[in-house]
C-alpha cells in the first residue's frame, strides 16, 4: 500500500495498514458475536409462534400474531446490518491490498479520486445508496429511507 516514494512516511503507512486490518478483524468478531443472539431471538419467536393455537382465538391471539410478524420484519434489519458491515470489512481489507490516492496534498481532486475508487468497489445498489446517503448527511438519520423498493414484490 505504501510503495511509492511520494507516499507518506513508512511508519504512518504501517499504522494505517494495521488500523485497517484491526478494524476488519474487530468487525468480523462483532458480526460473529451478534449472530448467536439473533438466532436465539428467532428461535424464541418460533416458539411463541408455535404456541399460538388456532382454537384459542380472540383479540389476544391476533395481537400476539401481529407482534410476532413485527418482530420478524424488524429482525431482518440485523441481517441487513451484517451485510453492510461485511461490505465495509471487505473495503478495509482491500485498502491494505491496493494503493490509495496519496495522503499528502490531499485536496478536492484527491477526494474525488478516492470517492471514485470507493464507488467502484461497492458491489450492490443498496451499498451505493448507503454510501451516497452517508456522504450527503455525514450519517444516516433515524428513519432515513435507504431503499425505495424495500418490502416490494413483483411476479414475472
Amino acid at each position, binding site marked *: 500500500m505504501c510503495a511509492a516514494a511520494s507516499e507518506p512516511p513508512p511508519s504512518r503507512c504501517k499504522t494505517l495498514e494495521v488500523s485497517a486490518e484491526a478494524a476488519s478483524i474487530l468487525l468480523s468478531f462483532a458480526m460473529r458475536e451478534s*449472530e448467536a443472539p*439473533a*438466532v436465539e*431471538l*428467532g*428461535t424464541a*419467536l*418460533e416458539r411463541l*409462534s408455535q404456541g*399460538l393455537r388456532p382454537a384459542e382465538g380472540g383479540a389476544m391471539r391476533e395481537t400476539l*400474531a401481529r407482534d*410476532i*410478524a413485527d418482530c*420478524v*420484519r*424488524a*429482525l*431482518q*434489519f*440485523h*441481517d*441487513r446490518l*451484517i*451485510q453492510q458491515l461485511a461490505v465495509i470489512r471487505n473495503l478495509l481489507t482491500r485498502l491494505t491490498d491496493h494503493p490509495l490516492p496519496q495522503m499528502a496534498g490531499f485536496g478536492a481532486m484527491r477526494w474525488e479520486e478516492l470517492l471514485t475508487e470507493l464507488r467502484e468497489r461497492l458491489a*450492490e*445498489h*443498496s451499498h451505493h445508496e448507503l454510501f451516497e446517503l452517508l456522504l450527503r448527511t455525514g450519517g444516516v438519520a433515524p428513519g432515513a429511507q435507504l*431503499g*425505495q*423498493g*424495500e*418490502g*416490494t*414484490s*413483483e*411476479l*414475472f
Partner: protein
Amino acid sequence: MARILAVDDSPSMRQLVKLALASGGHEVDVATDGVEALEVAEKRQFDVVITDVNMPNMDGISLVRELRRRTNYRFVPLLMLTTESTSERKQQGKEAGATGWLVKPFDPARLLSIVAKVLT
C-alpha cells in the same frame, strides 16, 4: 400446505423465512447456498423454492438457472428474496427463470399471500 425450500446464507434469515412460512402451515426445508439447495432439491421435490441472491459458492440467480434445467423444476415457482432491487438484477433473475422478485425486509403475511398466489 406446500413443501417449500428456503435458501439463504444468513442463519437468522433462514429462520425468519421458515417461521413465516410455517405459520401458514407450510412444510419448510432450508439450505445455506445454491450448491446445498441443488443437493436438497435433488433428494426431495419441492412445490416452491425461495432463494436469496447473494450467497457464497452459488448465488441465487445461478441456482434458478440450474433448477430450470431440471425437468422436475421446470414449472415450479422460484422466488427471489433479496435486498437487491435494481431493474438490472430483476431482469437477470427473470431471464434465469425466476417466477418473482421480493425485496427484503419481507412482511410475513405478504410472503404467505405471494406463495399462495404462485401455487394457484
